């Protein structure tokens, strides 16, 4: 057995429980779950952008592990290939050539984009299909494709534009944080592959500690605004970034500065739902009550007589 010590990586996380069962669910789309007896330790993937060399090993490892492939495209005048997330590409590198206005130095900012596994997942909130999107007590947000109906509400719910709907089986796909690997005590395929350990995985606490060390190191190298990206707007995420310029995340290929579930979605999934049901109910009830009170509006014999009289006039 290996006896390596990675100062750069957190101490081994012994308390990652094996197996992720229905008993570990804390959230379930369009339905409720009884909170698990014992919560799992929250896990997180930390992506240190300052260590990332944009080699795309994570992309390849992701495709290989998930038995997916993506078509051979063309060059678009950049290193961004494949160009965007698809139902098969759960993660892509986004390359930005940014000239630092202070130093006038070129900085090649390379961000691994993919599901952030929000503590408060907009996709799950938006999903109409019971159990199609679930969240485990360790923080992983996962799609259950047997239950997914492909409505695309998750796309509208997501503050990071992550889920993609397959045109083949019309189901939504995104990074699972390799729930299948985590379930047997392994890290996600991308973290496993990452040559520079820019991607590390462990308990969220360890990852935050690790991030602090990294941020200290970066500050010592002159990145005064180095910091952790764990946006509170979505209750924090289980995929976090270390950024050399945490004060302006948007320079990293438009990483949202303060992401939150869109108020429109909140309104749609909140107020509208209840008010709507109430309104429809109300109308039905009013009708009922009215009928009981006033009774049916019947045609009287006089009316018929009048009608005959009116028409009779022409006989």
């Amino acid at each position, binding site marked *: 057995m290996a006896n390596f010590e990675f100062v750069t990586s957190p101490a081994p996380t012994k308390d990652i429980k094996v197996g992720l069962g229905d008993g570990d669910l804390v959230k379930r789309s369009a339905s409720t779950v009884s909170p698990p007896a014992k919560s799992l330790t929250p896990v997180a993937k930390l992506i240190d952008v300052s260590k990332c*060399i944009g080699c795309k090993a994570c992309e390849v490892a992701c495709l290989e592990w998930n038995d997916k492939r993506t078509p051979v495209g063309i060059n678009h005048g950049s290193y961004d290939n494949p160009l965007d997330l698809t139902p098969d590409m759960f993660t892509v590198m986004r390359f930005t050539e940014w000239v630092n206005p202070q130093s006038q130095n070129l900085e090649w900012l390379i961000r691994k984009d993919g599901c952030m596994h929000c503590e408060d997942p907009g996709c799950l909130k938006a999903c109409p299909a019971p159990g199609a999107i679930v969240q485990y007590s360790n923080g992983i947000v996962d799609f259950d494709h047997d239950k997914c109906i492909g409505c695309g509400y998750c796309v509208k719910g997501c503050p990071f534009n992550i889920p993609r709907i397959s045109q083949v089986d019309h189901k939504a796909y995104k990074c699972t944080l390799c729930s299948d690997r985590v379930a047997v005590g392994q890290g996600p395929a991308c973290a496993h592959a990452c040559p520079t350990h820019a991607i590390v995985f462990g308990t969220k606490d360890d990852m935050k500690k690790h991030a602090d060390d990294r941020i200290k*190191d970066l500050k010592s190298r002159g990145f005064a605004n180095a910091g952790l990206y764990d946006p509170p707007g979505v209750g924090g995420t289980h995929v976090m970034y270390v950024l050399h310029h945490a004060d302006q995340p948007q320079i990293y290929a438009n990483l949202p500065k303060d992401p939150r579930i869109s108020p429109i979605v909140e309104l749609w999934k909140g107020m509208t739902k209840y008010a709507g049901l109430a309104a429809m109910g109300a109308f039905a009830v009013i009708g009922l009550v009215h009928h009981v009170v006033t009774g049916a509006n019947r045609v009287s014999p006089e009316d018929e007589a009048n009608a005959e009289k009116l028409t009779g006039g022409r006989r």
Partner: protein
Amino acid sequence: MTNSWTDIKNTDLVVIMGGNAAEAHPCGFKWVTEAKANRGAKLIVVDPRFTRSASVADFYAPIRQGTDIAFLLGVINYCIGNDKVQWDYVKAFTNAPYIIKEGFGYQDGLFTGYDEERRDYNRSTWDYELGDDGYVKSDLEHPRSVWNLLKKHVSVYTPEMVERICGTPKDKFLKVAQMISECSTPTKTMTSMYALGWTQHSKGSQNIRAMAMLQLILGNIGVRGGGMNALRGHSNIQGLTDLGLMSNLIPGYLTIPTEKEATLDTYMSTRGFKPLRPNQMSYWQNYKKFFVSFQKAMWGNAATAENSFAYDYLPKLDVPSYDMLRIMELMHQGKVNGYMCQGFNPLLSAPNRKKLTAAFAKLKFLVVMDPLQTETARFWQNHGEYNDVPTSSIQTEVIELPSTCFAEDEGSLVNSGRWLQWHWAGGTPPGEARHDTWIMAQIFQRLKALYQKEGGPAPEPIVNLSWNYKDPNDPTPEELAREINGSALEDVADPNDPTKLVLQKGKQLATFALLRDDGKTAAGCWIYTGCFTEAGNMMARRSTSDPDATGAYSNWAFSWPANRRILYNRASADINGKPWDDSRKLLWWDGAKWTGYDIPDIGPTMKPTEVGPFIMNPEGTSRLFTRGMMRDGPFPAHYEPFESPVANVIAPKVRGNPVARVFKGDMEQFGDAKEFPYAATSYRLTEHFHFWTKHSQVNASMQPEFFVEISEQLAKEKNIANGGWVRVWSKRGSVKAKAVVTKRIQPLTCDGKTVHVVGIPLHWGFMGETKKGFGPNSLTPYVGDANIETPEYKAFLVDIEPTTGPVA
């Protein structure tokens, strides 16, 4: 690599120059990020392009391709000028104090003894002045001491001169020089990570020497976290080189005799390597033991003392070497009939593709053994613009033999850090693919049978070749590995005490110290001896223990020589055997013997004050002045590439490396800056591996299409649209590619002239899963390094214009 991948974590400063480790060796580059994160190490990248390595560097400085020597000699000049020299190291472990012969000199870019006709030097003056005792005279203060000559030689490379030649802004150069010079203290080390960015030049060897000299001056050779670390390209190119699969080599860096060496004695006479300083080890004194043991491994009982151990069985060279460039040239002249390629795709790898195609077409037969359908095996197939050849008029018979890939075979590979690692087969070969060992055995068995049946010229070397395998038709990797390691053919006695038996007949050798020159031992490759001993297959060892986390992993696999993990490790301690840096101990003298974390490269009981660390040199010291070892000078000197956008500022008359070999007809094939204004360079991308991964669907999707990279300024000048098609052409050919317009390439100002760089990645061809494309070798010049003939891929001239897509 003098050190190992895992040792890089011990460094304080990483200089990536002449390479792009993050892009080409990501998992090795991990150890740079470890050093940064754990030791606060800094990373400097010097490159014409802002590379993936640069993207995580602490400091990046641009440089014009092909001017590294000027830059490095500039840094040496800075270190000497600012007394940033590790004097104790330099005085004790380098030849700085040695006195050079009267008459040696350097002027107008040429060293003494140049013969323009032969494009070669008479190197007789490039040597030490010997005393009557036969030892080198030593006096640091002497005007002709190596140190004083060096001081004078580098004095011209001032920061201003560096800026003129390299286009590196003075302030950036000074910042780099200052950061590097900090490592002259015994407690700070720097590591140099380089690759083909330095080798693929007409003066590639001297690029590397320049940095090696700098590392010696800083005292960084032989120490943890230091060294000269060549990042080898392919998974076993180190092994193929160690095993001498080259025109002029015998396994273990012994050399093939020339025809001037008619007998074994004449052959040995120039390989005695008598010590040049008192008590030196001069390890090559054992040359004959290695050589004879090799001959015995080859020809067994047919190699006897009587026939000089079958000395005549070896072919003798009439030229320095029949390297790839020379053989392709001969092919082009129609002087070659047959060619066999084993897992190699020269049509895309060798320079000047037009010339190659013509050359192959003149062959009678071409045999290709490869797990993949290579372009070389299909050079005769017409693929439109991508390979426009007159198929029917090509009379070459081509035989393609399917071989297995790594996943299906077993054996050992040597990594860049000289670790021999064993691997096991896990998959069934597809179709009728067979192991290369089987294929070679089959060819040999058939050839042997034909000679036994029909006879023919000199059949002996073939029919007597030792081939004692359980199944001669299919030797097993283990059998071959045992043969490489070597064994005792007879009982071997202690030389000092003939009654004492040190090794029993038939036993595997544990160390090359047991080799004999009397035919009692056989070993295929002496430097590998110890890899497969009586204790078993040392290459298959998998212990991950690493006492005190030095990064040595001494019980993981086997590292040549003698399982040594860091070469010249004796130099990690001062002249008295005390480690330079207590926090980074490697070896130390405990009063009676050497002890520490690694196998000492000098005798374990040899006194520190007496024996120098550089045991392969007769003087026991390292060489700032390399005597006559290199064809193009004992010191590196700046020469422009053969195709350069500017003239040589230092020696305007000299074009390219004055002794680089240029074949007739190729000189005319060089373009000049008027015709071809842009400085091109070729390189790899991290998504691909040479011409292999274009056969891998997943890699193809990561980097699908051939492109070239240019600056925004050049794009504007030529109104080239990002993502649009361009045509790039040189004197030798033309390609079409997508344009990637980027800030990562910036125009340089060299000697007042604006130089635009055109970057050309090399991964595309007409076979595989990627979009069809071209390789840079359609454009590159046919000239190699003066010493080892590595083609000049990194610096050549092109022109560029917008165009429309190819018609496939």
